[in-house]
């Protein structure tokens, strides 16, 4: 049986991990390669690297970083942040990334999704969507959630899948940072709207939040950052408990 996936997300700036990490015995917690390796050894099913570097030039370091990560770890990983062309993706995949995640650039230019799917296959195209509930409607936001649009979450997800997205990474801005659980109703609706895997993001605080994202939200994977980075939830404990709740999980 296919298992639900647990995915730590690492924010990268200028080639370094941004958020503090204080649980793993790391010599250099800012080193994404060392952190990625530690997570892969501790039961993560997949990793996401989100590059939040401000400038194009600094982003170039990302390609080198991807190569170093691919050299060290034996689980799949996705790279996102500032990707807007076939050439960007080609370089990252060539260096060993398995998937890329596109967000604002896909909204601005939806054809990018189909171009990437045709060139590299849908399996490596993750469309990330940040959305916020406004008057009962889930509206897509761009530029790291700063720019609201009129786009509806479910319409956009549907269009992205029709264009060739192989996976949707949905971050609820309402839940992000609250540690009060994922946006399970929206997740479930999303999961029933499109027929590609859904990664839940935003709101992880305790183990039962992950359980609910899978059982109520029908998510295929759940992503979190700080609860893992600060050791509030250990991936092994999380997976053990999910398995005890009869959720298919890789132990």
């Amino acid at each position, binding site marked *: 049986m296919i298992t639900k996936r647990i995915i730590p997300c690492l924010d990268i700036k200028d080639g370094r991990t941004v958020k503090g990490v204080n649980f793993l015995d790391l010599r250099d917690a800012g080193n994404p390669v060392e952190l990625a390796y530690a997570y892969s050894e501790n039961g993560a099913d997949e990793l996401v690297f989100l590059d939040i570097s401000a400038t194009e030039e600094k982003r170039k370091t990302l390609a080198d970083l991807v190569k170093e990560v691919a050299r060290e770890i034996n689980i*799949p990983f996705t790279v996102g942040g500032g990707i807007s062309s076939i050439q960007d993706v080609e370089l990252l995949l060539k260096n060993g990334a398995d998937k890329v995640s596109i967000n604002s650039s896909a909204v601005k230019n939806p054809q990018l999704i189909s171009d990437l799917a045709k060139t590299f296959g849908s399996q490596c195209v993750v469309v990330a969507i940040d959305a916020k509930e406004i008057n009962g409607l889930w509206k897509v936001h761009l530029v790291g959630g700063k720019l609201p649009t009129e786009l509806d979450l479910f319409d956009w997800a549907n269009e992205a899948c029709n264009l060739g997205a192989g996976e949707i990474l949905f971050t609820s801005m309402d839940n992000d940072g609250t540690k009060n659980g994922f946006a399970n109703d929206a997740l479930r609706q999303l999961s029933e709207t499109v*027929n590609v895997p859904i990664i839940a993001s935003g709101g992880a605080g305790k183990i039962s939040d992950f359980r609910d994202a899978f059982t109520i939200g029908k998510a295929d994977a759940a992503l979190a950052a700080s609860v893992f980075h600060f050791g509030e939830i250990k991936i092994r404990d999380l997976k053990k408990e999910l398995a005890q709740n009869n959720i298919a999980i890789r132990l």
Partner: protein
Amino acid sequence: MKIAIIDYGAGNVKSVQFALNRLGFEGILSADPAFILNADKVIFPGVGAANAAMKKLRESGLDQIIPILKQPVLGICLGMQLLCNYSEEGNTDGLGIFDVAVKKFPADNKIPQMGWNTIHNLKSPLFDGISENEYVYLVHSFYAEKIENTIATTKYGLDYASALQKDNFFGVQFHPEKSGKTGEKILGNFLKIEL
């Protein structure tokens, strides 16, 4: 040991090379028939669409080379599917090593299947030291039906062949290079196979 990784511009070969490095070996990317024919082991990777990949193989003449290889050959993911007779993906004729059609998963499951799933009914030296129900990483929308040459099965709605073997040809639907320690062991087993 000379390990050739068939280079036909299809997908993520870096990960395969790195996985071989972690096992202490080097995989050389090559589209040169002479080099591939003389390698001790040949890895046939692939991600992306079947028709585009077959077109590239035909353009480079590698479609004539792969079927005559005598050393152990390992097709990975799309590489395995291209070793089959035919794929529904773009109505593509394959290399015909495995006498089976590759079909699209029915839509009652999410497509692609993406993530970790278990392997069962293991029967090949490829799986020495691997237990039933170990997890491997898969990403695919099309699957090979179970046939006589099936050496592992996986269940995704239906039971399908997640690995095939015929003579010197091995095919795995999963990505051993991305399947943690289990995958590394399977890759290591392949490198140990002597015919």
